């Protein structure tokens, strides 16, 4: 019974969230949260891969989570979410085509890193880390206001 009720509640929540578009404030908060999880997973992957932390068993789950977020990057910048408490520069919405290409590169790079980690091939993992970093760095250099 309880299970049925909570499913119903969840369904209602889902239904209402589908019904209304996110506010710019929420889009910004969500974007930051997802970006921060990406940072966390990359830091974790790097520390495990470099042997500083002995947590080999979790390497793949970090990579899976990173790739999932990488898949989402291109959808984190809806129109109208460039104003307010954000470091996202207006250029993102002025050259959407180029920006989406960069977002696709983030998706491809994080997917490749996940696949490399799945394969367990150390050389492949080392090689796959670089495009992930390049992709993060490239976008931040062009599209993020830092201070």
């Amino acid at each position: 019974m309880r299970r049925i009720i909570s499913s119903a509640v969840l369904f209602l929540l889902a239904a209402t969230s589908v019904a209304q578009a996110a506010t710019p404030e929420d889009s910004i908060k969500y974007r930051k949260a997802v970006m921060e999880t990406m940072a966390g997973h990359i830091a974790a992957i790097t520390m495990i891969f470099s042997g500083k932390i002995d947590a080999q068993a979790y390497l793949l789950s970090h990579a899976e989570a990173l790739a999932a977020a990488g898949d989402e990057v291109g959808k984190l910048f809806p129109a109208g979410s460039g104003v307010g408490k954000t470091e996202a520069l207006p250029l993102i919405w002025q050259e959407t085509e180029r920006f989406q290409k960069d977002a696709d590169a983030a998706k491809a790079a994080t997917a490749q890193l996940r696949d490399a980690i799945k394969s367990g091939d150390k050389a492949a993992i080392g090689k796959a880390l670089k495009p992930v970093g390049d992709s993060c760095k490239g976008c931040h250099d062009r599209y993020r206001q830092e201070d």
Partner: protein
Amino acid sequence: MLAAGLLWAAAAPADSVIERGRYLAAAGGCVSCHTEDRDDATPWAGGRALATPFGTFYSPNITPDRDTGIGAWTEAQFVTALREGRSPNGAAYFPAFPYPAYAGMEVEDARAIYAYLMSLAPVSRANQSHSLPWYLKMRLAARGWQWLFFRPQPFVADATRDADWNRGAYLVRHLGHCGECHTPRRALGALRAGEEMAGNPVGPEDRKVPNITPDEKDGIGDWSLSDIELFLEIGMLPDGDFAGAGMGQVIDDNTSQLTPADRHAIAVYLKALPPRPNPR
């Protein structure tokens, strides 16, 4: 080690001097400023706008094109430009060109960079004049600035420090000219010597540049040597964030191209700086 380096350079065929020059030019970060900020820009042909509190400077073409580049320059003229801030016709350069840092460059290193640049394909691209307030328009203004602030001094190794520290000092202070962005400036643009690497609230392109002294609160005191080395190699901060805002390009063009030993030397030097709070 230095003597061995010089001997090696003198005895080596031109190809390895060029190769050494290519490496040193990367360590000098030359291409970042001497290339226009466009995706299809030709490297080394200049034209990048450098917005500063003193006006906007446009970097010149340093390909060996005889008419628009530096193809007609002698090696000695090139070395003078780098280490003394004078153009071949004797005019003083504005310090947007980081010769106050390059002044400490070993002459052999400057020569190798010349050899490398002369090995590039000449590109015809006319230089654009700087966009400056009227009182800076005269080259005499740059001469006055040099008279006030510019005391070229060769790099002298500190015998009380180890080889890594000294190599790091050479790369950070001179070739890499890190202080040009990371050290705060006085009213007329001279670096505040007592606040080396303490950060700059008004850096190039109006961007705030972080404190990279080992200060626990304001600086990078909680970064390990390997954190700094990895950052210089791939751009990742210890929390997994990735640098942007100009530093991303410095990593691409300069620090990621260095040998692990040179990145280690830079880290050793930075960690040995006195911790300093952010400038007020």
